[in-house]
């Protein structure tokens, strides 16, 4: 119990009174033990089972009932999986796609939201309405026509299939980002921008030097959403990255799954999970704050 402190005087469903009685205390610790066991069983044990599974040999994995711990803690499956499935290549592809999707979303959506919030051009309301209207469409309803737009981009006439741009460009058309950013920019007082203008700052300078530094929290939220979504996405990369050489980890793992020995597959799953899990453990405060901010409060 490293963190055992009563840190919230806030009243909840149970009254603090109940918990001070002897019966209440016993009940509390019973429930606490039950919940912590169930949580560990439900969310930690499966992941440990995966980690251990990758250390077992193929015959050991086929044994019924399974061994609790591997006969020997052998990590060779990890290195073997790395070369067998060419994971380095797919990690590289995924990093490239996630980074590009993140940067292009910031580069496109931040100025757009800034213009709609502070520069307020003619027709701005209509444009914002047109963007937000796209949120009403379930993403999968647009799968087919967007795929066709990728195979033959209107006006430009290029085929983006197998190019990272096939993921980056549609990702930039993200109305949710624009909505979140615009709402945040709306709260920045106009006087601040007027002062900058009187001092001779142009719109770009004002955005970069005044608005963006104030907007770090929302930029963090948008960035986290962008990177996590790109890393987790499956159906869209499955459609537009058909050449095995350019696929992301998710698409590649799914393609390898039918004919890869299970211990190597498990090692591959562990390796593919590590970056996001580590990022989560490091940035958990920001990620969990962004979760509630993004979904409800904006």
């Amino acid at each position, binding site marked *: 119990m490293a963190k055992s402190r009563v840190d919230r005087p806030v009243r909840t469903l149970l009254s603090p009174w109940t918990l001070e009685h002897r019966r209440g205390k016993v009940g509390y610790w019973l429930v606490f033990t039950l919940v912590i066991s169930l949580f560990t069983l439900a969310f930690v044990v499966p992941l440990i089972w995966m980690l251990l599974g990758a250390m077992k040999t193929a015959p050991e994995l086929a044994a019924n009932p*399974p061994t609790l711990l591997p006969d020997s803690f052998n990590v060779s499956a990890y290195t073997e999986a790395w070369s067998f499935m060419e994971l380095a290549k797919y990690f590289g592809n995924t990093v490239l796609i996630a980074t590009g999707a993140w940067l292009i979303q910031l580069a496109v959506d931040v100025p757009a939201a800034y213009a709609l919030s502070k*520069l307020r051009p003619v027709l701005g309301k209509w444009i914002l309405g047109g963007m937000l209207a796209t949120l009403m469409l*379930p993403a*999968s309803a647009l799968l087919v026509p967007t795929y066709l737009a990728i195979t033959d981009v209107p006006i430009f006439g290029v085929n983006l299939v197998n190019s990272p741009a096939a993921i980056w460009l549609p990702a930039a058309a993200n109305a949710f980002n624009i909505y979140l950013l615009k709402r945040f920019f709306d709260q920045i007082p106009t006087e601040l921008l007027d002062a900058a203008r009187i001092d001779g700052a142009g719109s770009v300078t004002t955005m970069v030097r005044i608005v963006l530094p104030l907007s770090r929290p929302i930029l963090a939220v948008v960035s986290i959403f962008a990177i996590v979504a790109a890393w987790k996405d499956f159906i869209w990369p499955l459609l537009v990255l058909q050449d095995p050489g350019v696929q992301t980890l998710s698409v590649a793992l799914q393609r390898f799954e039918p004919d890869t020995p299970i211990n190597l597959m498990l090692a591959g799953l562990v390796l593919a999970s590590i970056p996001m899990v580590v990022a989560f453990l490091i940035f958990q405060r920001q990620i969990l704050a962004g979760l509630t901010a993004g979904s409800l409060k904006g």
Partner: protein
Amino acid sequence: MSTTTALAPDADQRPARAPERHFTKLRRKVTDNLTAYGFLCAALVVFALFSWYPIVRGVLLSFQQVNFVSAAEWVGWDNFETLFADPLFGIAWRNTLLFTGLALVVGFVIPFAVALVLNELRHMKGYFRVVVYLPVMLPPVVVAILWKWFYDPGPGLFNSILRTVGLPPLSWLNSADTSMLSLVLVATWASMGSATLIYLAALQTIPGDLYEAAELDGANLWQRLRHVTIPQTRFVLLIMMLMQIVATMQVFTEPYVMTGGGPEDSTVTVLLLLYRYAFTYNDFGTASAMSLLLFLALGAFSALYLRLTRTKG
């Protein structure tokens, strides 16, 4: 589409106007607008190409037959007739509704119950939050492959546990009776972290005096839950329910990776069938007709969701 791209301004044109005093105001307005559209132009282009144009094209495609060799051909309601004649179409909708229904029973009630309990616990709160959210960070494909291994009827984790505690093993994904429920369990495990933490945040905004007042009026635990907690979180609950309906009706990764639609078509979902029409049969017209129907089914939920979050959130 051409109007939106025509709006993209040429930044160099700005100072060209003669600076006459009468026109200062007008000129300022024009300059401001050109600047604003300069900021907006990239977004307008990507929205036009990859969002607005596909929306229009999707509707048109529903009434067309395309083969990418000759020009698209108008076929009226043929695509919809193809769908209604396909026995899998009805099955896919039934399966999807079953998935959504089960996901609501399992995936809507459990996170709220978990959040309620977590909100009462005073120790190790950080651990609970991190642990329940961990699966959300895993790529869905990883989760699907991992659980496929857990569901293995022979040496799989779940049947081993069942055998250990003396229960009969289940066939999980291998039987049409349990396949959909198995998919719901994976999907719930993988996504309940976000719902739980959102509920937890909502529970923490409930003012404590409401509970105290209710208690003074003699309300017991159950009555406090019914008359304080639930009304106070009603808005969040409604939003999350709408969001969950929209998300679960589009289920694809789990059936695609774990069952491929089987056994006996018991896990063919709307999106899986749509995928087959488009990318196995190359029948983009019929696939678009199906997208249109999916949109009509979900549009109302999405619109209500947006309305609620925009006005009240």
